[in-house]
């Protein structure tokens, strides 16, 4: 961080480094659409012809041909290209074989035959210390493909030390780091790129706060125009469901980088959640113009159709996304959601199961499975799935509310109460937990607790400012009115009753309650109001028990 946090001079330093890298390696090889490889030129001029030829073949994806012409070359870069061609050739053949295999059971057995030879050769060179940064990276990839993850991590770290500016190696390493302890135990070179990596890792490990801090530092250090950082921050906000912030950032990103397709599926998710139809439609059309055969594009279109309730078409586009990349996790889950909408529960279950197969930690798929079984009226059965989802996202109120509802259906009120209260404590997104808790207390005749919850609910609703569609403030007010009336707190009761009259569905009851109160007051004719503290100006009635006490009541 020290290199970044400070003066502008460091930024110049970084730029110099980058330029030097690029000028040193004048021959660049495009390896994939994500990262770029650069090649040294001065040395080994005798290999130049072969290298140039092989490079052309490589670009044309004729890997075997490229490897053949590079066979005798001894320079580092020729060696790398040679090995990399062999590797990619094996991968390509493997993919082709998958379609043309001898039976479905053999399918899983198709493997890259080149891997083992590559490993043997590379390990020999590795032991002799002859590998440079790129070849080390390749060695790491080979090891990872052979499921030798521990060795792969070591090799990637080595590769990073050899060539810190190669982002590909960092990315591969990030896929292998599973938890924060492992991350801390790695010895990484102290380069400015390490901060990018750390921020990326924090996002992956769902440590959003730390990630945002890192990115903020990077922006302050001078990377404010980097679209990469903006997109990453937007994704981070999306992960913590700060929708407005994320939307703003994505809009900014689209201004700066209008032909960008990466991360646009996340953007469309946000637009979907906010039901912004025109924006989503615009985005979809725009992306189709740029490239219609991208996974992201298909997902955006799927979202678009889903928002228009054309679920068959939506499912079709998600399927197309999966054909483009079967390991695309989001599409499986989204397709599950579509089938749910179409009431095709069995297909939904299948889609969710596939999502889980790709990534066991996909909480949305577990949640979706739970929902499916809930629709099938199997509240006990869905508990397992909701619990799984909750395990993965312990602080997400939606899972907790879902768990609570299931427990309520199974008449396990104690557990249900715990869930609702916890959902409220972790910050309820849908603002439903308190209402449900209150109703539960009401059912169990725990009127004090119920009143407390309704009160908190009203506070919650009004404090968030906007009017939510499903808000049942009237229900809460009605109950509170009756509650105060029963407890002979007529001032508070009349206040509640008056506010009841603001709502259509509770108007009559409010009026009736007001009449009752005035009757009772006439009978008593003693000004009971003096006994109580006057009402405050706030929206809520005065509470009889402080909210702190509620905690002791509720588990």
């Amino acid at each position, binding site marked *: 961080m020290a290199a970044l946090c400070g003066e502008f001079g460091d930024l110049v330093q970084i730029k110099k480094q980058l330029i030097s890298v690029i000028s040193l390696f004048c021959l660049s090889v495009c390896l994939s659409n*994500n990262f770029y490889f650069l090649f040294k030129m001065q040395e080994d001029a005798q290999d130049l012809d072969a290298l140039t030829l092989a490079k052309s073949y490589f670009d044309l994806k004729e890997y075997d041909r490229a490897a053949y012409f590079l066979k005798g070359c001894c320079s580092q870069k020729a060696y790398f290209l040679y090995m990399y061609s062999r590797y*990619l050739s094996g991968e390509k053949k493997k993919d082709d074989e*998958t379609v043309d295999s*001898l039976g479905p059971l053999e399918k*899983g057995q198709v493997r890259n035959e080149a891997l083992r030879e590559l490993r043997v050769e590379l390990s020999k060179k590795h032991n002799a210390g002859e590998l440079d940064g790129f070849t080390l990276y390749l060695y790491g990839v080979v090891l990872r493909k052979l499921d030798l993850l521990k060795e792969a991590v070591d090799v990637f770290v080595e590769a990073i030390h050899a060539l810190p500016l190669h982002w590909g190696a960092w990315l591969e390493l990030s896929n292998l780091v599973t938890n924060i302890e492992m991350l801390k135990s790695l010895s990484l070179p102290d380069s400015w790129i390490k901060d990018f990596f750390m921020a990326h890792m924090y996002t992956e490990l769902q440590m959003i706060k730390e990630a945002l801090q890192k990115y903020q530092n990077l922006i302050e250090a001078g990377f404010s125009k980097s679209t990469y950082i903006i997109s990453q921050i937007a994704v981070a906000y999306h992960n913590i469901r700060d929708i407005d912030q994320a939307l703003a950032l994505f809009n900014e990103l689209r201004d700066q980088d209008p032909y960008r397709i990466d991360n646009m599926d996340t953007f469309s998710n946000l637009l979907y959640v906010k039901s912004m139809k025109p924006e989503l439609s615009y985005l979809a059309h725009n992306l189709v113009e740029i490239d219609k055969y991208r996974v992201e594009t298909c997902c955006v279109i799927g979202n678009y159709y889903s928002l228009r309730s054309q679920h068959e078409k939506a499912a079709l586009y998600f399927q197309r996304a999966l054909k483009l990349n*079967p390991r695309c996790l989001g599409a499986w889950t989204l397709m599950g959601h579509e089938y749910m909408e179409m009431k095709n529960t069995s297909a939904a*279950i*299948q889609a969710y199961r596939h999502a889980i197969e790709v990534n066991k930690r996909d909480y949305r798929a577990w949640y979706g499975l739970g929902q499916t079984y809930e629709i099938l009226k*199997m509240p006990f059965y869905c508990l397992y799935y909701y619990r799984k989802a909750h395990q993965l996202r312990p602080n997400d109120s939606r899972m907790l509310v879902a768990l609570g509802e299931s427990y309520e259906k199974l008449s396990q009120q104690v557990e249900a109460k715990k869930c609702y209260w916890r959902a409220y404590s972790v910050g309820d997104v849908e603002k439903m937990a308190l209402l449900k808790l209150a109703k539960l207390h009401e059912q169990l005749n725990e009127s004090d607790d119920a009143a407390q919850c309704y009160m908190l609910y009203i506070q919650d609703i009004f404090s968030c400012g906007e009017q939510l569609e499903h808000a049942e403030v009237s229900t809460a007010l009605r109950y509170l009115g009756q509650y105060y009336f029963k407890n002979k707190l007529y001032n508070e009761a009349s206040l509640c009753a008056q506010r009841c009259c603001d709502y259509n569905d509770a108007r009559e009851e409010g009026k009736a309650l007001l009449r009752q109160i005035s009757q009772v007051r006439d009978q008593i004719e003693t000004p009971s109001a003096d006994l109580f503290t006057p009402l405050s100006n706030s929206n809520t009635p005065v509470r009889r028990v402080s909210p702190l006490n509620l905690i002791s009541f509720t588990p």
Partner: protein
Amino acid sequence: MASVHESLYFNPMMTNGVVHANVFGIKDWVTPYKISVLALLYEMTASKITLPERRRLNKLILPLQQGPDLTLGQFLQTVEECCPQTAYAVKLRLHEMADGELKDMEYFFSTLPTPFTAFDSEAYKTSVVGLFMRHMLLAYNKLSFSQVYKLYKSLQHYYHSHYAKPTDGQAGLAAVGDAVLQYLCKLLRDKNDNAPSRGPLSQKQAEYFLARQAYLLKNDENKALKPAALQEELNNMLKFNPDFAEAHYLNYLNSMRVQDIFLSAHSLLHYFDRLILSGSEGKSNGDEGYGRSLRYAALNLASLHCRFGHYQQADLALQEAIRIAQESNDHVCLQHCLSWLYTLEQMKGSDSTVLTEDSVKMAAHFCLPYLASLGIQSLVQQGATQGKTAHKLMDALKDTDILHWKHSLSELIEISLAQTTSIWRMYGKSTMALQQAQLLLNMSSLEPVNFGVQQNNTEAFTVALCHLAELHAEQGLYSAVSEILQHLKEQFPPHSQHAKLWMLCDLKIQFERHMNEGKYLLAEPLVTAISALNKTEGLYRKAQVLKALNRSTEAYNILQRLQVHCEKTKCTEMIIRVMLSTAELHWESSGFSTALPLLLQALALARQHHLQSLASETILHLAFTQLMLGVPEQALSVLHEAIEPVLAHGAIMDKGRALLLTARCQIAAAGFKLNGQGQADLRSAVFGVDTLNEAAAYFSKLNCKERLRDVYYLQAQLHRSLGQTSQSNKSAMLFRLLDQELQSPAPPVSMRL
């Protein structure tokens, strides 16, 4: 991140969101092994073979078709054992293809007799062989250009690897000089050899494998793969075909074996998620199959929780299953739910007789013999503990037996026999119990899978064998016992699900033995082990040890606690035992009169429940109390009632004790005082001598030295009173020897039974 080297792991070919495992609907694929089988079939039809050889080969065909792919070596060896000539011919034919060209393989397939033309041969289209050949031909014809070439390549590899392996390996190693390289090659090869131990299975082979393992898990766990190996095999299978739902179910069963709730719940739910799909795919009635699996999913979840002892969870799951089944009017499923409901109630320890009766009635109504007789067996068990009359229970069992034989429900026949054994033992009729246990053990399996094979790895067999061991222990035949236990240990290794039964039995036998031999300190550590397996039993044994070590207060406290507990759980046998032990404690404080009401109560209970052995035991106690209270004549008359059943059915220890008591009563009734004074009836004293001799024989069989010492003491006294000095001296010497050996001082007058 759609980078180039992200592999396309699977290809989603779907209709309506459902990915089909078999894209082209072909279940069988041609493999080199299958070609070898085809070659074998071809040679069998083509060449002349002698009749016995043909018969052996015919027997071989089905296992070869259904089994997993063998290596060429294994395959040729099995064929060679049946008919060397054919094996050679097959080898030749394979050699022709593998060393020839692609066209040789194509030629082979074209010359295969098509089942449609060969009317009179075994390869007719509807025969097993014909079906197999049709499958193979169809699969071969559907192969694409590159697939045919690949098949040929793999055939070559298959053929050559058989011959090249031993020589090539060494030559290869010698040629490569680099040690590191060698090591790595070896490492990789090892890894490769281990992972897919038998190569990928075809759909049918996988199904066969799963069915076989599931059957073994249920009936003969010992023969099934070890949990870890099975898990590995299943993982392997799922890697090749993630849509193979049944593998998840077997995974669930396997995890249950090792008591892994986490994995078993996961696999169970995964299985049903998958099953729901294949149900809706719609072979029969789509909607019906779908809903059905949902109901059974909930029911299975209930059974899972029940097995792990999560009764509340099980209850909730069961309620759910019942609700869904009711909504869809599925009576069969409801019936299953009901039978689980009463099982659950029983496990929770509450009375479920009414539920069970209902279940039996309904099951009979819906013609579900299995559930009906399972219910009856459960009723019989409850009835036995609650003291229903014996003939009713036996009648019920007999009726169900008729039902079982009619529907050949072999599993239930076994259970019924084991149950009869237990009931006879409970009633104290050891001979009958012995006979029933032998009947079960000598019965051959009726299962279609291994018909006629004597199989003995179900729970029923464990129970019968345990009874057998205990019965032998009662008779002091400890070498036989250890043989039986050794057999049990081999058949049910300690990790298997029924192992607890024999462990408890083993511990109990050891405990009894140590107690009989007076080695109380050795018996004490066993108590902890017993309590780990059965809490009530453990407490009771603890009380016994404490009593023997003269720590009466502690023993009394434990017995009181135990009695309260047993009265709650209605465990009559244990209540009576506890009462007897309490009475013995009273004796020690000379409270003979306080022991009497307890003993009478115990006697009433034992008679009410027809527990003959316990009743005779109680009578012995009563007689002893009376003897101590000074009414030996009365004691003798009471004893007469018990001595007959004890001698007929009792354990050796009981026989010895009964005879010793009789002798003491006889001596006392004859008017002897132990110090040898007073007038005595000599004739009855002679009876006493005989009885004592008999008792001594029994005790020496059990090596029960303390009681033997008592016997010698009494004998010496008696002989002296009768004036037989030499015999008296002999007994006295024996007594002296034992007394020195035992070291603990003998109680002045034996205060125990």
